[in-house]
């Protein structure tokens, strides 16, 4: 079972929920941190990293000997990542999407594929939890290829938790695609509601079953709850604001480590999710 955790709005508690769920299940579990721009789960799970892979994407390289500066590559490139100016070919690797078009279609065969590191993938374990972390290099334009690669390491024999980034665009789509269920973590504020409605649209577009967790549920208004009820969206849990939790979080201590009695609550969330998935099938 693959469960992703997303939100729309940043800072609502995705990583908190994902980490504490994984720790509450704690057997046959895999955790994937797909927030490759700002991965945080390692701060709480403190995994022992056993392997690090460099991840590269393809970029073109020009053989000036063969190139006749016809400019066909510039015409083909949909991203303005290659430019031909007088007798010079300029390549902008940060914006190259690695489609391979220029290389394939160069009439002189003057372009070849080389690669550029865009980030790393780390593998490790935290107690009984298998851990996979993607981290994109600072300055790298698009995290999507790295997220796609991290997802390839999903072990479907385990209960998999995928920590997604904030937002509603393609990094989130790449992270949640293929999940059996997505938990949307929100807060009961106008910002939370605004972004939740966008995240809900993403889930509906991707046809992924989903439910909501309202974090800091007592600081705000009832509009998120009203919205969920009106839209028939299950509320899996409401977590009241707790300054002790906030302090624990600030120190990188998972809630269920500091307050083990909360494991029951998180296991309950998982049972609700299993029931939803079973009902749908």
């Amino acid at each position, binding site marked *: 079972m693959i469960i992703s955790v997303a939100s*729309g*709005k*940043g*800072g*609502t508690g995705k*990583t908190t929920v994902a980490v504490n769920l994984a720790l509450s299940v704690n057997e046959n579990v895999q955790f994937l941190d797909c927030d490759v*721009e*700002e991965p*945080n789960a390692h*701060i709480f799970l403190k995994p022992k990293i056993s392997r690090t892979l460099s991840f590269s994407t393809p970029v073109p390289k020009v053989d000036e000997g063969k190139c006749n500066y016809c400019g066909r590559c510039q015409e*083909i490139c*949909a*991203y303005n990542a290659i430019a031909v100016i007088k007798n010079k070919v300029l390549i902008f690797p940060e914006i190259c*999407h*690695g*489609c*391979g*078009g220029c290389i*394939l*279609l160069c009439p002189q065969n003057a372009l070849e594929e080389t690669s550029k590191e865009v980030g790393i993938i780390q593998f490790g374990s935290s107690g009984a939890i298998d851990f996979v972390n993607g981290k*994109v290099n*600072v*300055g*790298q*334009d*698009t*995290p*999507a290829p790295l997220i796609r690669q991290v997802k390839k390491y999903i072990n479907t024999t385990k209960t998999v938790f995928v920590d997604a*980034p*904030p*937002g*509603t*665009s*393609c*990094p*989130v*789509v790449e992270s949640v*695609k293929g999940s059996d269920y997505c938990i949307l973590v929100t807060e*009961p*504020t*106008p*910002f939370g509601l*605004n*972004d939740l409605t*966008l995240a809900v*649209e*993403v889930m509906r*577009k*991707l046809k992924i079953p989903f439910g909501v967790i309202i974090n800091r549920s007592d*600081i*705000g*208004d009832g509009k998120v709850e009203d919205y969920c009820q009106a839209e028939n969206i299950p509320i899996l849990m409401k977590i009241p604001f707790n*300054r002790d939790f*906030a*302090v624990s*979080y*600030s*120190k*990188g201590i998972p809630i269920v480590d500091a307050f083990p009695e909360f494991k029951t609550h998180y296991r309950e969330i998982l049972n609700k999710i299993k029931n939803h998935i079973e009902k749908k099938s």
Partner: protein
Amino acid sequence: MKEIVIVSGKGGTGKTMLTASFAALSKNAAFADCDVDAANLHILLNPTIIERYEFKGGKVAIIDKEKCKRCGACFAVCRFDAIVIKGFTIDPLSCEGCGVCAHICPEKAIKMEDKVSGEWFISKTKYGPFVHAKLAIAEENSGKLVSVVRQNTKSVAEKENRDLIIIDGPPGIGCPVISSITNTDIVLIVTEPTLSGMHDMARVAELAKHFKIKTFVVINKYDLNLEMTEEIEKYCQKNRIPLAGRINYDSKIPEAIVNKKIVVEYTDGIVARQIKNIWETIYAELN
């Protein structure tokens, strides 16, 4: 004309809250919301939309079933798993609009069509002109839309003789953030006294350094963990990033937001004074 962009690395640290307060404190500015996939600033600035435009970010491939001979050449070249063999259709959510399939199709059965992937708006607010956008659901090219918002904010600001642009930036360090900050005058990083906040602040600070942009840090909710606040301050000192100020954790702030009010207009307590001091520090730096 000067420009400041407010970013964070980590989401939820208080960028929009602070940007809106700056808008209220400014005398002659224009504003932009560059967090195009989860825009919130409009909730506090209460804009009236004057102009709206479609954003055509990229293209999507479409296969003409009548011409398609199912040879699979497109499938062989697509690097994004966007060709669905069953039925020979395109998965629009995977298609990145590169056009390679259209170029190589021997039957010329594939066309690239413009995709409307969002909308952007020029609005007016009580505080000044405001440019914002909405990326369509699950779309990409958010960096491009950010550039459109930014360029148009500049044009509008010039037209209306504004001397400052204040930008609410997105979380993360990817291309929407890069598009928000390149060539700006000041990057202001809002962080929180948590390990996550500090980790993410360091990455966005590195990004700003990469682009050689003057950077400042604000520690929001600083009294939630004084030890962590000290750690962040040490980090800033070591990396020569000046601290623009600290803001208390105060229930007045979430209260203001729930009421869709700008903090410095909602309260004149300690957090309002702290925000005003930060504004004065940054304003002085810009001039």
